[in-house]
């Protein structure tokens, strides 16, 4: 994965978050407080505002800078969590410009560990981890298309879970029956990346 590819992935995440502001917000309003879509959209807008000036020395630096903008500019729970994820991902590939498949997986594992530490959460708590971990596992074993499908299946399955972290946890048993907003956002983003990746693969 070239630096341009990494840029494209981050850009795709940002675009997807901004375009899905209302959808993500509606998901968060079922048992949450409805601000998830708004928080992500405003934060990624901030990222795009300073897009051209982001340090692109290498992929690691680029991801770290991205994480810092997000952590310092997005509010709510998502700012610290997503910011930490990007910063840790960058740290895992410090100095590298072209990333191997193994490096991409290692980077995702670092992001996951960052979220777990910052959020004091784990797989099974009905959070974005419940889509991000299956996504990473599938990517390690196969293609981005397979990974996106895994993320989607896992996100849909959060509907059967009871939330143990995040605001939804306050509603206890009532959180069962609707999907987690963060996990679904991961699935939507993964599908979008997979789609763009295929087009780009075809054209390059």
């Amino acid at each position, binding site marked *: 994965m070239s630096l341009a590819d990494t840029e494209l992935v981050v850009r795709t995440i940002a675009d997807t978050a901004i375009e899905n502001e209302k959808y993500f917000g509606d998901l968060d309003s079922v048992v949450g407080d409805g601000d998830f879509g*708004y928080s992500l959209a*405003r934060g990624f807008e901030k990222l795009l505002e300073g897009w051209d000036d982001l340090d692109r020395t290498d992929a690691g630096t680029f991801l770290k800078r991205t994480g810092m903008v997000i952590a310092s500019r997005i509010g709510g729970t*998502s700012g610290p969590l997503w910011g930490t994820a990007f910063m840790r991902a960058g740290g895992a590939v410090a100095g590298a410009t072209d990333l191997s498949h193994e490096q991409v997986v290692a980077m995702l594992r670092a992001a996951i560990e960052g979220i777990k530490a910052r959020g004091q959460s784990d797989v099974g708590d009905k959070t974005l981890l419940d889509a991000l971990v299956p996504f990473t596992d599938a990517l390690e074993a196969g293609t981005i298309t397979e990974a996106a499908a895994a993320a989607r299946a896992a996100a849909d399955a959060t509907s059967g879970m009871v939330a143990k972290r995040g605001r939804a946890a306050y509603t206890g048993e009532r959180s069962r029956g609707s999907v987690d907003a963060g996990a679904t956002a991961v699935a939507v983003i993964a599908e979008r990346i997979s789609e763009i990746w295929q087009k780009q693969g075809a054209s390059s």
Partner: protein
Amino acid sequence: MKKFVNDPKSFVPEMLEGLALANPGTLKYIPAYNLIMRADAPNENKVSIVQGSGSGHEPAHVMVVGQGMLDAACPGDVFAAPPMDYVYETAKLMASPKGVLLLVNNYTGDRMAFDMGKEMAEADGVRCEILTVNDDVAVQDSLYTVGRRGVAGNFFVIKAVGAASEQGADLDELLRIGRKVNDVTRTMGVALTACTPPAKGSPLFDLGGDEMEFGVGIHGEPGRERRSLASADQIVDDLLDAVVPDLPYNSGDRVALMINGLGGTPISELYILYRRAHQRLTERGITIGRSYVNEYCTSLDMAGASLTLVRLDDEIEGLLEAPADVAIRVF
């Protein structure tokens, strides 16, 4: 959406700008960090007291910045904790030789933002301490949750540490006082309608005409359980049954009793709730030393109310009685 709003994205900044315009001389607004601060802060002879949280809870916290309460508030967007940057910048601006006390209502987002902001400010040499408020009995504290939420009882913590800091208390003393007040404060809330965040434009959840949400927080997230609408007296009795045994508050205790409106309930109804609560507590042998009936910590336009009790002793009562001068005033 039945709201006075221009662009939902400018809801918070425009409100803050209005607040500063209405309070020239006493308040200052710094747009870059959603910051509302006392015009005379930081004061090197007192600990600075800072709170941030999501917006939508007004008058908490931006309208209780002023002499005797907060030195600054750095709210995030509606129902979103402030970015850690805001916390960091606010802590730096409020740096006093006596230190900065950061008050945090116990929500994941707020805790993370304040933890990160505090670390960054400390790296710059600012002495900071965090005091967490968690008065909401609706949330069962257990290993599986992030613990009780901080809701309207927050007001009493701010008032007490605000008064003590004016009297020169140091940071450790403020931590002791704030924890002490938090430890004897309990709240439970009920919603009759869902609120409408400006950016969403429609109610956060559907509530039938004869339903209510019992045990709600202050963010419009659904509560502990949905119940059939009941009479005002019945609702108060149920709230008291949740709040009183929790500390517990016992016969012979002297308390502050707060009926807090959630934003869409008129004050007339709050007094109807107050009446019953006062009567019931008196029957239980509990003396109401101080009464608070108004909006203190709201959920945008939600119709609903919360009931808070604080067990008083001479120290706490003295601090609650102390003068203060903040933007929510009538004159």
